[in-house]
């Protein structure tokens, strides 16, 4: 079943000549985890806000379960939980109050909303924040609270704007794991924006790459990776002045003076490994191409 059907979408802000996004079309199916990748100013947040009906579109259409997102004022909020990128919306409430009211206003009765608050505090490992004012939480804790609020009362669809920004590695892992649980065990369709292509790869089932307001490509990462010329990534690090000699025709990126990244095809791997003196390296990592590589490949091709 198609959850979101976005067709030929365009948004031009008043007074702007260049569209924030232009001719964007894609679909998101039920139960999917769909990630939107893009650089700063690519139009990701504009697109997400159009999808949750906070922003009108200049042209094109967005259907949610077959009906326009503007269908009636309560249609979209009854189906979609949205997490904004930045918000001080809940500042005067405690974390517990924010979760309770969000669940209650989304249709749960009083006792169910209290249970939901307790469940969410546990699920997002925020029990100790229950009675703390949102305004006194750290940036990362506040983001986690916004995420918990978006998931309150089991909306079928979650639309999340940068869910892992500001989070420490432990919390980032919690977010990705919980999103996977929500998708797998509760059947939620999840759509999110992220800069964090490497970590997002853990959960993304389909990706859309947005660049300068245009959707460059959509598809599942493993299928899109087939189009990459060099599918392997070798990262080596060495002592200053100890750069290893390598075959001449390699796609090499000097990350720092002592750390290089090399993109390889499978048949090149043997020669490169043979050329390296492993004992003179301080670190070496070999991996298949990542979502980040995929992102750079398609963005640079534009």
């Amino acid at each position, binding site marked *: 079943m198609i959850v979101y059907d976005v067709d030929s979408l365009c948004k031009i802000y008043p007074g702007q000549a260049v569209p924030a996004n232009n001719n964007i079309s894609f679909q998101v199916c039920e139960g999917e985890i769909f990630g939107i990748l893009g650089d700063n100013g690519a139009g990701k947040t504009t697109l997400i806000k159009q999808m949750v009906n*906070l922003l009108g579109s200049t042209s094109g259409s967005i259907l949610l379960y077959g009906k326009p997102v*503007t269908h009636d004022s*309560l249609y979209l909020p009854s*189906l979609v939980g949205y997490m904004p990128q930045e*918000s001080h*919306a*809940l500042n005067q409430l405690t974390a517990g109050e924010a979760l309770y009211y969000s669940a209650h206003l*989304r*249709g749960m009765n009083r006792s169910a909303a209290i249970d939901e608050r307790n469940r969410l505090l546990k699920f997002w490992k925020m029990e100790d924040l229950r009675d703390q004012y949102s305004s006194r939480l750290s940036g990362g804790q506040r983001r986690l609270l916004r995420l918990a609020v978006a998931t309150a009362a089991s909306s079928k669809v979650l639309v999340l704007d940068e869910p892992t920004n500001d989070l420490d590695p432990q919390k980032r892992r919690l977010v990705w794991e919980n999103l996977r649980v929500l998708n797998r065990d509760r059947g939620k369709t999840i759509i999110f924006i992220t800069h964090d292509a490497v970590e997002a790869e853990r959960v993304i089932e389909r990706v859309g790459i947005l660049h300068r307001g245009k959707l460059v490509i959509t598809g599942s990462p493993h299928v899109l990776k087939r189009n990459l010329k060099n599918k392997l990534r070798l990262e080596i690090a060495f002592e200053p002045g100890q750069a290893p000699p390598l075959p001449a025709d390699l796609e090499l990126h000097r990350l720092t003076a002592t750390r290089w990244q090399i993109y390889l095809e499978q048949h090149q791997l043997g020669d490169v490994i043979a050329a390296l003196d492993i004992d003179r390296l301080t670190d070496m990592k070999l991996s298949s191409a990542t979502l980040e590589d995929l992102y750079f490949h398609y963005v640079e091709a534009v």
Partner: protein
Amino acid sequence: MSKRSRAQSYPVQLIDLVLIELSNWRWCWRSIVVVGTFVPLFGMVGLSIYARDLGPEALNTIFSGSLVMSLMLGNLGSIQSHVVFMRFQGTLEYFATLPIHKHTLILAIIIAFFLLSLPALLTLLIFGSALLKISLAPHPLAMLVIPLCVLPMSAVGALIGANVGNPQQGGALSILTTFLFAGLGPVLFPAERLPEILQLIGEINPAARAASALRQTLIGPLGELIALDLAIVSGFTLCVLFLVGKKLDWRARHSL
């Protein structure tokens, strides 16, 4: 569609939103104490010194005018800055993504700020009447008039908050509006002390009408004028609330 979560009924939405909005006391109590209580109280004392020789009618006007300043104009500033805050800090977006109606939210804000201003009103009633030696004779209609008097300026505050480009503009505009409503008509000064043009404008100034209604229902006597006072206050409120509903950015409508 079965996938949809059930939206709460209108009264449940309203109660939840009022409770959420009431939590604003956590940040705005200082402003309520200063703007809603001390400023009108000191103003009342200052004006009473000037009006002591002008007779009880002038003192009654100063008393009711000070109540209006606290009830109406204090709420104007608080609601204006709250709505601006909601627009610029993402609160409005948060509410827009919940299955609630915009007018419920606007009403909840006004009710919550009215409830928050009640302690200031009681303080003014008790201390003000004692200071000015006014004997109160509250009419039951005061229970209707007091909340009704809050509405017009609360709605104006929401309208300013919904339209201004930034919080600084909002602050300046609400101060200007406060002075205009307080000055254009017999709000703080008796009508006979004002130029004819201000008396004429005062006929349709909701702040002046609210002061008149408060005077009649708290001090007496209750006259036929009360019906016109309440009609003007209510009409003005409805018009402004309609504009707030139109102007407050919320969900996108059929803009394609």
